[in-house]
């Protein structure tokens, strides 16, 4: 039996994901918060929400730092304390943990956590440069190693050690693109065939264009409460019952292994321990598929299969929407998009919808336990959260 809730989610919001011209981060965040407020009419945001924790990776995109109060101003949350957390692509996974800590400490009863990134107004070269800042500068960036390059180094090692194939990686793209066609907020609501994915332009061999997630604008938010007060705001809160986070060397070359993300394994282990659950108890998961190989690593690191069997898991269609363990029903970073700061709480948003039966035409039936897996950079940060339906 799963252990007691740490905190409860009483509402959640997501902006449209995509190329959203003329919008600033703060406006995208306002769109996400408006949905969260609409979903929770019993909540008076200005009176009830006591603090804001937001994930945001790069001030370079908008030449705008000091993201906490910027977003609080547009979300109608002044004068509540508002702070930004930066952990690369795991920024809002870290913000979610900060919100959990704030409630568990007894300091706050109700907080908002979220994240945002506005990326598409920059050139691909600029975005590549900003994203690369999350990798090791003096040895990786200095030697011309890109972000796809780092995951490609892991993919090559995985192929060599376990026989994982480029087709299996492409199958992750096919699956997630299909799920994205069922999500009206996804950036790219378009199916892709295995042939098309395999024939796409090489970015960093063995990774091709369709192995890479999208450059996307978007925002997400979650309203967390102490479990004792959740029922005041909704009949069906979702409880967070496990949280884990771990760090690894910033440079891939300093890690013990190249075919696994140790930080993700440790974060998962901690979250499972706290929740009193095992990998086989998970009914639906949103994992960090910034590259297709990353989803395969996630299966293995989270214990959904044995090390080296991740490629087979997707090939056997275990993780499709109708499979035994649907992974990335939202379309994932691959087709929903990856506005990096928004991703962690966008994953939590999808699990909230799934566990409250609000995921519409991509709803997975009979789900009770959900999991999110949010990775920063090439794996130097990982946050895992486990959720339970009420």
């Amino acid at each position, binding site marked *: 039996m799963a252990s007691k809730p740490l905190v409860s989610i009483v509402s959640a919001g997501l902006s449209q994901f995509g190329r959203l011209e003329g919008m600033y981060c703060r406006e995208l965040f306002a769109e996400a918060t408006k949905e969260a407020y609409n979903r929770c009419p019993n909540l008076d945001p200005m009176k009830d929400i006591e603090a804001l924790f937001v994930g945001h990776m790069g001030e370079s995109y908008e030449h705008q730092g000091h993201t906490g109060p910027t977003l609080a101003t547009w979300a109608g949350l002044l004068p509540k304390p508002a702070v930004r957390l930066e952990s690369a692509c795991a920024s809002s996974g870290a913000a979610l943990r900060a919100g959990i800590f704030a409630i568990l400490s007894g300091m706050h009863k109700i907080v908002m956590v979220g994240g945002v990134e506005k990326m598409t107004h920059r050139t691909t*070269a600029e975005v*590549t*440069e900003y994203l*690369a800042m999350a990798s090791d500068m*003096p*040895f*990786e*960036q*200095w*030697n*011309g*190693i*890109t972000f*796809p*390059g780092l995951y*490609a*180094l*892991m*993919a*090559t*090692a995985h192929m*060599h050690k376990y026989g994982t194939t480029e087709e299996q990686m492409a199958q992750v793209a096919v699956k997630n693109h299909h799920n994205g066609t069922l999500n009206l907020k996804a950036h790219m609501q378009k199916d892709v065939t295995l042939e098309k994915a395999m024939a796409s*332009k*090489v*970015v*960093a*061999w*063995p*990774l091709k264009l369709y192995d890479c997630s999208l450059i996307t604008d978007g925002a997400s938010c979650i309203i967390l409460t102490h479990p004792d007060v959740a029922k005041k705001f909704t009949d069906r809160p979702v409880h967070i019952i496990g949280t884990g986070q771990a760090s690894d060397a910033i*440079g*891939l*070359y*300093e890690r013990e292994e*190249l075919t696994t993300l140790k930080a993700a394994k440790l974060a998962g282990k901690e979250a499972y321990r706290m929740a009193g659950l095992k990998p086989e108890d998970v009914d639906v998961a949103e994992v960090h598929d910034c590259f297709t190989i990353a989803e395969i690593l996630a299966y293995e690191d989270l214990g959904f299969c044995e090390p080296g069997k991740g490629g087979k898991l997707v090939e056997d269609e275990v993780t499709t929407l109708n499979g035994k363990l649907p992974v990335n029903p939202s379309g994932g970073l691959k087709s929903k998009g990856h506005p990096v700061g928004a991703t962690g709480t966008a994953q939590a948003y999808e699990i909230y919808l799934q566990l409250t039966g609000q995921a519409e035409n991509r709803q997975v039936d009979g789900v009770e336990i959900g999991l999110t897996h949010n990775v920063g950079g090439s794996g130097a940060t990982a946050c895992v959260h486990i959720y339970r339906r009420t």
Partner: protein
Amino acid sequence: MPLHVSTFTGEHRKMSEETPFTISSFYKFVSEKRLMAAKCNECGAEFLPPKPMCTKCFSTNLKWIEVDGKGKLLTYTIIYIAPEQFQDMTPYIIGIVEFNNGLRLPGIIRGVKPEVIKIGMNLKIDFEESVSSEWHAWSRYFFRPV
């Protein structure tokens, strides 16, 4: 020595006139065509890149060791979409090389065609003649077949 004095850099280095155990020093050695790592005199742990404090036993009693630049290729990728300052080199091969003492570095591999590159192949470090004027003006190292 008073506790508030930096033991890592500058005039007040602890008990020795050794080169500080920094990344800048590493690249200064690269400009002299030497691959140098840090070794902890207390616990024997070796570090590449060097670190000013042993992260195994927290000692700052360190020394420089010269690393044999021969090693094996652990993994590789071929970069087609590159950052601006590397775009005229595409496609180029990046690998992580494990040297004979177990330390590793990532870098560009030259002198090998993409068709024949293989995990496990023997490579050695080599050094560029010129110091880059970009970014931190560091010298560059790269890998090539033995």
